[in-house]
């Protein structure tokens, strides 16, 4: 059984389809919650920042309103009685400067000859010349100079915004309204002028104003910073820095940002963002060019004065709490995920282990190994019940297979015995069949042989009779032959004697020939000597020389002829000698032949006697053989029948043997199948 991949295991599936999705869901919830929390916290922080900006703006507005009220009170005092009373007015203005330490200067400026007393004033002494211009126009301007308050002329005010601003506003609306001008730096101190028109009988008769020192705004900004932990920038309506908590001090102690134009400052690039496009809360995030880190800004416009309050906090500072919240969420979420994951994994592992144990037990059972113990568990859930069932199953299978195994063994031994018995029977039947066949064949052969023997005996009987006849004839022939042979013997002896005579005669011829040869030789010598002598005789011997030569020739011829005769006689002698020897041998053979013929005759006589005596015996044997042959024929038929029966028996036994072999094979299969199981003994 191949081991499944982890994904295909129960544990893998439980982890993959149970634990993992749960963890993912919890993680998603925690993440979303953290994101929401982050957003909410950021929103709250941004809101708080915006509120701080608004509070600061309201504070600025309130303060401006307050000083506007003072300016308005001064204007109202003019319209309600003081107008034209130059001396009292001068004192009143001085009293205002003296009364309010924040006021560094206050003035009243009439329109030229607004009270109709310009000319007379030049002549009078009641009012200081410093309170009017060269034309006698009433323009007293009390200015705080260290501990004293000095009266100056307010000259050139026609060109001043603090004068023209309220005048234009009155001309436009027909109503008096406070006016705050753009702060200016005066004697190293930023000053803003609050102005209010003097309206006499519905006409613009001049205006009053007071110069307020803005150094105190820096303190206010510090207070806000202390409260919010945020930097505060206060800008005028003309986008000039009035006060800030984030201003760097130069070596000379001068403030860098204060009194600077926003467009010319380091924050010039963000000018568009700083000035809100709509009233109220406006929050944005940007990289601070001075701090060089992301910061969150909130801007708010003061209703009175149109001043712009910008509150700045670094993003890290703002998000600290949010981050803490998110971290807390993540930690709590992670702990939750770990707890849930751990618990579910533990349960999965436990269940998977039990199911794996059950699977292993089932696999052992499938392999037939019933020896492996089934793991016990204390669990009472379904897996525990499954393990208990597996244990019961193994025990039951052990018992069942054990019983089958014992039964198989007993059955196998019985089948083996049956098989052996049937084989034994088959062998016996086969042996019996073979033996009966052999007997039948033997009997058949005996019958046939008996018949043959009868026939042969008949032939032998006939032959014996014929032999007796022939023997008798032979004996008679032999008797004739014996006499012929004896005659031959005699003739041979005679021939031998004649041949001996011839031999003797030829020897005599040889002697004669020798003599003739000697004579011829002598004649030869004689002729030679005759020739020699004839030569010595000279011409008398000439004729004799011829005769001598002839004689010698004759002698030579004689010698030659005698040589031929000698050779012929020698050949004849050799032939006669061999003839004599052959005749001797022949004579011997004839003699032996005569002896043999006589012996053969005697034996023939004996044969004839025996043949004559055998004829009766042959007859008896013949009859017995015929009877035996018939008996053998009957036995053969009986044996053939027996052999057929034995064959049938053997076939039956073979069938039985095959059946028992099949039974054994089936038992073998059963045992093999049972043997696959390993059982407890």
């Amino acid at each position: 059984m191949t081991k499944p991949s982890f994904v295909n295991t129960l544990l893998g599936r439980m982890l993959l389809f149970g634990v993992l999705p749960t963890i993912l869901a919890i993680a998603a919830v925690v993440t979303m919650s953290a994101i929401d929390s982050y957003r909410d916290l950021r929103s709250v922080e941004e809101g708080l920042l915006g509120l701080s900006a608004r509070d600061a703006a309201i504070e600025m507005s309130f303060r401006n309103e307050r000083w506007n009220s003072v300016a308005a009170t001064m204007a109202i005092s003019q319209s309600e009685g003081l107008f034209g009373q130059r001396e009292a007015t001068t004192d009143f203005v001085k009293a205002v400067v003296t009364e309010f330490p924040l006021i560094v200067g206050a003035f009243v400026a009439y329109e030229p000859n607004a009270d109709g007393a310009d000319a007379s004033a030049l002549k009078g002494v009641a009012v200081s010349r410093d309170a009017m211009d060269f034309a006698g126009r009433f323009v007293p301007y009390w200015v705080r100079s260290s501990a004293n308050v000095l009266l100056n002329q307010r000259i050139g005010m026609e060109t001043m915004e603090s004068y023209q601003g309220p005048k234009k506003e009155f001309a436009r609306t027909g109503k008096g309204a406070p006016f705050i001008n753009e702060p200016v730096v005066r004697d190293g101190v930023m000053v803003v002028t609050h102005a209010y028109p003097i309206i006499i009988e519905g006409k613009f008769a001049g205006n009053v104003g007071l110069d307020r020192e803005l150094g105190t705004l820096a303190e206010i900004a510090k207070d806000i910073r202390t409260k919010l932990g945020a930097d505060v920038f206060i800008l005028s309506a003309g986008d000039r820095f009035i006060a800030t908590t984030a201003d760097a001090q130069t070596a000379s102690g001068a403030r860098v940002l204060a009194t600077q134009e926003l467009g010319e400052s380091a924050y010039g690039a963000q000018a568009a963002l700083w000035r809100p496009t709509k009233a109220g809360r406006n929050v944005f995030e940007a990289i601070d060019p001075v701090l060089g880190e992301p910061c969150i800004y909130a801007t708010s416009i003061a209703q009175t004065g149109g001043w712009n309050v910008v509150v700045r906090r670094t993003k890290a500072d703002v998000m600290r709490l949010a981050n803490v919240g998110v971290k807390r969420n993540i930690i709590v979420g992670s702990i939750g995920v770990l707890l849930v994951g751990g618990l579910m994994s533990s349960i999965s592992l436990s269940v998977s282990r039990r199911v794996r144990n059950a699977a292993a037990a089932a696999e052992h059972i499938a392999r037939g190994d019933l020896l492996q113990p089934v793991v016990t568990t204390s669990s009472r859930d379904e897996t525990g019940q499954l393990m208990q069932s597996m244990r019961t199953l193994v025990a039951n299978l052990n018992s069942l297979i054990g019983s089958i195994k014992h039964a198989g063994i007993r059955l196998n031994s019985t089948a083996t015995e049956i098989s052996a018995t049937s084989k034994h029977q088959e062998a016996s039947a086969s042996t019996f069949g073979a033996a009966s066949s052999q007997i039948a064949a033997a009997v058949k052969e005996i019958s046939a042989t008996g018949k043959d023997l009868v026939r042969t005996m008949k032939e032998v009987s006939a032959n014996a009779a014929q032999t007796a006849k022939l023997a008798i004839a032979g004996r008679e022939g032999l008797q004739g032959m014996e006499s012929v042979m004896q005659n031959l013997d005699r003739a041979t002896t005679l021939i031998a004697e004649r041949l001996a005579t011839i031999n003797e005669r030829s020897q005599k011829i040889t002697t004669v020939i020798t003599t003739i040869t000697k004579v011829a030789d002598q004649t030869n010598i004689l002729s030679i000597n005759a020739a020699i002598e004839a030569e010595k005789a000279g011409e008398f011997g000439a004729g004799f020389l011829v005769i001598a030569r002839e004689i010698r020739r004759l002698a030579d011829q004689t010698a030659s002829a005698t040589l031929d005769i000698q050779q012929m006689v020698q050949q004849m002698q050799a032939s006669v000698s061999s003839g004599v020897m052959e005749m001797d041998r022949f004579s011997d053979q004839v003699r032996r032949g005569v002896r043999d013929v006589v012996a053969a005759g005697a034996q023939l006589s004996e044969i004839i006697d025996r043949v004559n005596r055998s004829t009766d015996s042959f007859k008896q044997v013949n009859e017995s053989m015929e009877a035996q042959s018939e008996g053998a024929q009957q036995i053969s038929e009986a044996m053939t029948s027996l052999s057929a029966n034995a064959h049938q028996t053997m076939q039956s036994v073979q069938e039985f043997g095959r059946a028992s072999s099949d039974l054994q094979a089936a038992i073998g299969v059963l045992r093999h199948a049972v043997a696959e199981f390993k059982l407890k003994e």
Partner: protein
Amino acid sequence: MQTLAVIWRAAGLRMATDARTIVEVLPPVSCRPGAGAPEWLRGLFAYRGALIPLVDATQLLGTARESDRMFNRVLVVRVGTVNAPVDWLVGLWVESVLEIERIDFESAGGHPGFGTDVRRFLGPVAQTRLGQVQLVRSEELFTPQQAAMIMQRLTEAAA
């Protein structure tokens, strides 16, 4: 000049001897061998009441002696030498006598022989119907030493 020559054979060679120097031709004779005699001297045999030496022509010619045959002949030759007081006879045992014929040893076709040579039996050679035949003169039959030895014996016998 034609000479009646007895042509004989010895040691496989055909030789001829002037018939006038031959006293008689005899069949094989028995002789008495002389102890310590040279091999070519067969011994002495009786001829017409006198004992004369029997010399073997085959051995005289320098080859081995052959067994005796019935057709062997003994030529009784008269040997005449310058210093000899008497003519003397000697028996020359030859293999056979072939023919008696007149032969002209000096005619064209013959050969004068090598007479100046110290060797014997180198007389003139003639071509006959039997083949080449060399003439053996009776005075050239023996070397001076052989002749001297025989002569001494004969002289002592005569004295």
